[in-house]
């Protein structure tokens, strides 16, 4: 695709695009116009495609607005967390910096995408408390805590999007976009788990290295073995260990369950 035509198109849908580019290069992440810089602009393209499908954001069905704002709250929470954490000198060990840099960038892109799609209906970013009301005293000074909170956010994000997917069935392009964000969150979650010495997938409802108070909520119900009425533990008895059966399916969380997990992080 022709770069110039992308920019012309972008300029039409998002006047702030060039400002954002400038912002990005000021941060010194990208000194030249690279593929990565173009990626920063992609939410505008995506949003343009979605608004073409749905008209103005004011015409989005209310259930879709609700789901997207719920997702936006989680993405704000994650994005600010990584924005802060990746800028604390010495917090993240060198070998893990590339991973966190990519995760930070993806969450920032998700925020921009959701905000652009929602337009004036987007909720404002609330202030966050990453100590979770004093549950964590060293979120940004102890890498073990930082990565544990990251794991909790990513695994919760996967389960939260999953729970909302059926609510987007009346908005197919948005459903597909949400599924694709969901898979990105899963790739993040697996990487964070692995760097913390956990399996990339969730065995049973194991706390997976999180403190009881958090892990019991984040992984509640992950030990389910019944799918569409089929008891897979019975079906696969002697062929696949119970742990493997539960790892094979990530379970959804309801909006209420997610809210309970997230609430301590809201000021």
């Amino acid at each position: 695709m022709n770069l110039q035509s992308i920019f012309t198109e972008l300029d039409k849908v998002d006047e702030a695009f060039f400002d954002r580019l400038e912002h990005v290069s000021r941060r010194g992440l990208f000194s030249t116009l690279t593929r990565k810089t173009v990626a920063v602009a992609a939410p505008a393209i995506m949003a343009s495609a979605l608004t073409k499908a749905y008209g103005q954001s004011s015409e989005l069905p209310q259930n879709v607005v609700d789901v997207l704002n719920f997702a936006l709250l989680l993405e704000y929470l994650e994005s600010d967390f990584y924005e802060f954490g990746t800028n604390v000198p010495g917090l993240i060990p060198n070998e893990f910096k590339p991973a966190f840099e990519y995760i930070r960038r993806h969450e920032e892109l998700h925020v921009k995408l959701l905000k652009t799609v929602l337009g004036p209906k987007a909720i404002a970013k609330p202030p966050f408390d990453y100590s979770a009301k004093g549950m964590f005293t060293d979120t940004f000074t102890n890498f073990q805590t930082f990565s544990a909170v990251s794991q909790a956010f990513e695994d919760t994000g996967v389960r939260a999007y999953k729970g909302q997917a059926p609510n987007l069935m009346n908005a197919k392009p948005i459903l597909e976009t949400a599924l694709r964000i969901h898979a990105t969150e899963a790739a993040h979650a697996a990487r964070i788990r692995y760097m913390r010495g956990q399996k990339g997938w969730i065995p049973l409802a194991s706390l997976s290295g999180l403190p009881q108070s958090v892990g019991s909520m984040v992984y509640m119900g992950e030990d389910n073995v019944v799918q569409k009425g089929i008891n897979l533990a019975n079906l696969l008895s002697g062929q696949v260990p119970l742990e493997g059966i539960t790892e094979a399916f990530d379970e959804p969380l309801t909006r209420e369950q997610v809210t309970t997990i997230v609430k301590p992080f809201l000021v």
Partner: protein
Amino acid sequence: MKKLNELMQPIGPAVNAHRRSFLRTVGAAAVTGGLLTACSTADLQVSPDGARAAAPGDVITLPGGDLGILNYAFVLEQIESRFYELVLANPYEKITAMELQLFQDLRNHEVTHRAFYRAALGSAGIPDLTLDFSSINFRQRTDVLEASRMFAELGTAAYNGGGKYLTDPENLAVAGKIVSVEARHVSIIREMEYMNQTAFAGDNIVVDAGLFIKLEPMEVLPKAQKYVREIIDARNLPTNVA
């Protein structure tokens, strides 16, 4: 350097397959499969057992609607599960204990997915396919990891693109439960290949606005057909959202 270059490539060209050219592709793949078979080791071809077995050369026509999409997923899960069963039966040289555990986990998950679809679809399910992995060198760690990555990426992209065609919320919910596990596989397999880099969520699988790649069934099936000795006919699969 070659590997890094490959990593920067998309997992394959977006095939905007017209139905007729799709069938041609499938036909060509089936012929190629047959030729490869003639000079391959027997243990890398897996014939199904049991009453619901298909035979090489059979045409398997996927149904329409949700049943079509679920059977489409069942094709992919059959390929993945057999592949990992073979990896464990033929472990590559100098495989580490950690890598064996990883492949055991992947095998457990994919066997579970296959068993789920087989049970959930019942008599509406396609038969057990005859699979042919003779193009993969199971002795080589790099080959096995590359094939694992390819299957996991294909699976994730397929669920990402196929989900919107499902009309029953329960079917979408269960597909959603599986796709994130496939995405977790992609992340960990890539981490095994390219440790402590950004490959786990690299620019060729997470594109645009932080979105994981997606593929339409017509883009996925020609890639899957390479490993299947029956001919998968996808003409009835949904191509437009309801």
